[in-house]
């Protein structure tokens, strides 16, 4: 073998540069998130300057601005961070597990079943009974959805059965949601449901934050443990197993973590597509394409993009906001198209 050429190790400067780029990613996303969070607090029908926003946050300022900032815009922005982080994190985890760059959090049917649960509370009128009835219905829907998913997907770790089961759950929940719309007693009731389905962070309170947070926190915790298993899965399920990561166990954590976090996110914000698909793609080059290293940046990036989207829906028609799901689809659709074209170019 000595006859074969032996080249020197890769240039350390290049390796260092790549390391530095990766090291800066998280701080950069963190700073961006804080800045956009602040901007988000300054945007709304009432004109409140940044100085006044700060005053309201620290307990000073007028009563009116305090109420607007602390009870309307702050929970909305916090919820935006939570929902965006959830979608980014779950999207990165699912793409890593399925080894498919086109996977997204809605794929395994949790979003659809949570939406169905919430829609049922609107249809039956339970949603009007108390503030949290609707998100609680969404969480109940997610629980039933994940139960069904597990039964359909069976035990073991196969990615294919998980996708097929997810498609089945999504189809069933979608059909039932359509049925509920079909049976809506009045056009107004139907419109209410349709608007809710489009996703929004408007008129949410801290009650929504506190309801969603425990579910999301546990879900994030589970998904955050997937870093090394996802790296190991780069080479397929047998190799991941041989490296000490049983795929069945990894899949169970993925499904439960996604169900808890995405279920809660859908319950409080409706269905918001494309974010979980797009964010991991945008950030993958910055972590040298390592699926495990992508999780945390994707969570931060998801939060940033969600806040940006939530700012964007408030700007064009003050008083008549766009729906978040509409905006993310408007932006995400063309992105998806570009993705397909880019992949096709790379194929021979």
């Amino acid at each position: 073998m000595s006859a074969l050429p032996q080249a020197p190790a890769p240039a350390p400067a290049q390796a260092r540069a790549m390391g530095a780029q990766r090291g800066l990613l998280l701080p950069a996303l963190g700073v961006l998130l804080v800045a956009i969070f602040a901007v988000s607090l300054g945007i709304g029908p009432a004109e409140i300057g940044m100085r006044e926003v700060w005053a309201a946050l620290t307990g000073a300022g007028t009563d009116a601005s305090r109420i607007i900032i602390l009870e309307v815009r702050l929970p909305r922005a916090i919820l935006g961070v939570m929902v965006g982080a959830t979608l980014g994190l779950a999207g990165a985890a699912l793409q890593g597990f399925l080894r498919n760059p086109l996977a997204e959090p809605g794929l395994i049917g949790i979003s659809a079943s949570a939406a169905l649960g919430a829609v049922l509370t609107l249809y039956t009128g339970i949603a009007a009974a108390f503030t949290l009835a609707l998100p609680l219905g969404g969480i109940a829907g997610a629980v039933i959805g994940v139960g069904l998913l597990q039964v359909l997907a069976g035990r073991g770790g196969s990615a294919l059965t998980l996708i097929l089961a997810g498609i089945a759950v999504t189809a069933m929940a979608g059909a039932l949601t359509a049925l509920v719309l079909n049976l809506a007693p009045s056009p107004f009731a139907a419109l209410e449901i349709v608007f809710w389905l489009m996703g929004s962070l408007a008129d949410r309170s801290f009650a929504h934050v506190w309801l969603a947070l425990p579910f999301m926190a546990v879900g994030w915790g589970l998904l955050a443990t997937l870093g090394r298993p996802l790296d190991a899965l780069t080479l397929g399920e047998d190799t991941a197993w041989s490296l000490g990561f049983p795929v069945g166990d990894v899949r169970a954590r993925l499904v439960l973590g996604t169900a808890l976090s995405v279920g809660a996110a859908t319950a409080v914000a409706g269905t918001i597509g494309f974010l979980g698909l797009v964010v991991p793609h945008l950030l993958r080059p910055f972590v040298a394409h390592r699926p495990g290293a992508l999780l945390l940046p994707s969570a931060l990036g998801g939060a940033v993009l969600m806040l940006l989207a939530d700012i964007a829906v408030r700007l064009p028609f003050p008083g008549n906001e766009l729906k978040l799901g509409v905006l993310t689809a408007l932006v995400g659709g063309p992105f998806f198209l570009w993705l397909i074209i880019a992949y096709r170019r790379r194929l021979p």
Partner: protein
Amino acid sequence: MTGLAASGLTASGLTVALDGTDILRDVSLAAGRGEIIGVIGPNGAGKTTLLRALVGAIPHRAGAVTLDGRAIMDLPPRERARRIAYLGQEEAAQWAITSETLVGLGRLPHRPSWQGPGARDREAVLGALRACDALHFAARPVNRLSGGERTRVLLARALAVEAEFLLADEPIAGLDPAHGLQVMDVLAARAAAGLGLIVTLHDLTMAARNCHRLVLLDKGRIAASGPPADVLSARNLERHYGIAAHAGTAGGKPFLVPLARTGETEEP
């Protein structure tokens, strides 16, 4: 060897069913440290299934796989992963990670989840890359490697585990002769240093020249096992491969050139 609580990696009476069909039936073998066992046999004989069952990636219906007398399924996953490495045949990296990162995956079982790679890990990765003549494309994304380069990087990943046993499925498939010989040299060197190897091979000359023992599988059963010269007899080649071959010696080691199909396999 059945029933012995022998040291090394052993299978006894191993029967594996996939989708209700027995793919392996009553397979027993024992691999010691420092030994290269070649698993040969026609397509569909169950070679890959045997390797997957030995590493525990698929369950067996009957029999046992033990490492130094302990059932491998009773070993904690991390310990099992450190002691038995596996190189699959159809491994393909989905993501555009660099070769070095990919080889580094072999170090995952060696550290707890909160720890990054240390000096020892880096040393193992570079050593494995160097052994497989892959150092000069260590920084290149694996999706931009040629087939032969990728094969060597994947082998380096398996060597980086620095396990006691390595199960390698077709490690030289798709390599040019120089790199095929090089990989066999690498495996021989690792075996001389104490690694136990079970390798599936299609190249009978490579098998004859490099393995200490051969196991010939046919239709899920062991048809013959022992020293290469015995297993690769004209009778066995005709019965199980359906070929006639020219056998000779070169440089003190045997070689085999398949010449013709005899059409006398035990096909149903």
